[in-house]
């Protein structure tokens, strides 16, 4: 059996310090690469030499599909679903194209590995639903309400 060749997709956090609640510092590119290499090995494959990086909140450039083709990658390992997130919206169109190009997508932080059409469809429902919910929840008042930890 051929070992899977995975393209690793890193996330450049917008802040190196406290990038999100409960996380003291953002993982470096080297740390992310090592973690994705380990994930690739656990899946019986290797990470291709090239990695792609998405900037936090800006999403992934569609040219990632060219890299998938050039590297002959048969799977994509994302640090997080957030690599596909533009502002509040997951780029579900690109997510679907990555799936169509490879048929295997791993999400390291979310601990999900999509290898079958039903597993992808299931996750796609979550991504689309969260796009709707986040768009609706986007008011400043709601953000203040749920982040107000000083209520007691």
């Amino acid at each position, binding site marked *: 059996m051929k070992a899977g060749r995975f393209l690793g997709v890193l996330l450049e956090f917008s802040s190196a310090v406290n990038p999100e609640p409960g996380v003291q510092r953002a993982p470096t590119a080297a740390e992310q690469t090592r973690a994705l290499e380990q994930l690739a090995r656990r899946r019986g494959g290797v990470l291709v030499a090239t990695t792609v990086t998405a900037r936090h909140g800006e999403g992934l450039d569609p040219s990632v599909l060219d890299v998938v083709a050039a590297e002959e990658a048969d799977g994509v390992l994302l640090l997080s679903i957030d690599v596909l997130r533009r502002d509040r919206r997951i780029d579900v169109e690109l997510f679907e194209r990555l799936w169509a190009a490879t048929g295997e997508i791993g*999400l390291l932080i979310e601990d999900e590995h999509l290898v079958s059409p039903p597993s992808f469809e299931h996750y796609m429902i*979550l991504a689309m*639903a*969260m796009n709707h*919910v*986040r768009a609706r929840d986007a008011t400043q008042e709601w953000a203040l309400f*749920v982040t*107000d930890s000083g209520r*007691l």
Partner: protein
Amino acid sequence: MTGCHRPRDHMADDALADFESRGYCVVAATDPATLDRIRAALRDLAYELVGAPHGSDDKVGADLDRLHQHVAPGEAATAFRLTLTKAMTERFDVGRDVFTAFEAPLARLVGVDVLAQRVPNVVFQPPGDPRPTELHRDAPANSPYEVVVWVPFVDCSGTKSMYLLDRAASHEVLAFHREHHDDPDGFRRLLDARAALMAVPYGSALLFWPGLFHGSLVNRETETRLSLNTRFKHLFAPLGMKDPFRYFRILHTSPLTRLGLAFEREEG
């Protein structure tokens, strides 16, 4: 006749009326066989982890009541709880089983498009453990559109259980804190007066709204408390601070939701 029309469940009506007025209710499992299966699996796993023999199939509750006899208190108890949680999550679909066991009232609260917490929290509280759960409430931070399901695997009452302040009491202590934030003694007296220890026998669950203050005391009883808490919400309900992709997973979706989202993909 199709299966679409069900007779009203008056017991569930009463419980859900309590849920709305007080913020909580205790409900019996509507699928007790599933709950029994989770408990037996948890007992077997716990005894496998501590390396001790367990009793026969009719001794599951008794085995869990005396689990503290096999685990040292303090750090070892914490490590045991974490290992048990990880093993439970890897081996069983606990969120789905809990929803199934209490599906009748839960579906009435959150509907049929359901998100389940990815990793339920297992709580192991041996007698005398000096680290109970501090007073807190889940929302804000968690969405106020979630329901917390607290499932004891042993009969829980007194300090072996958890305490809760109902909606009115939670509102009252919050108002007191805001007006008298420099009076911790007064706050503590009010809390002691309003907090109620929940009596929840095995076979039941405490469903509560995340805006309620709750916590636990040092377990002064002679038996272990082993319980699980997890959360469910509607797929399209407003989010709290928790990242939905890390905290939740989809448990159920309706055919209508799947059709609508498919339509959006195909024609959007």
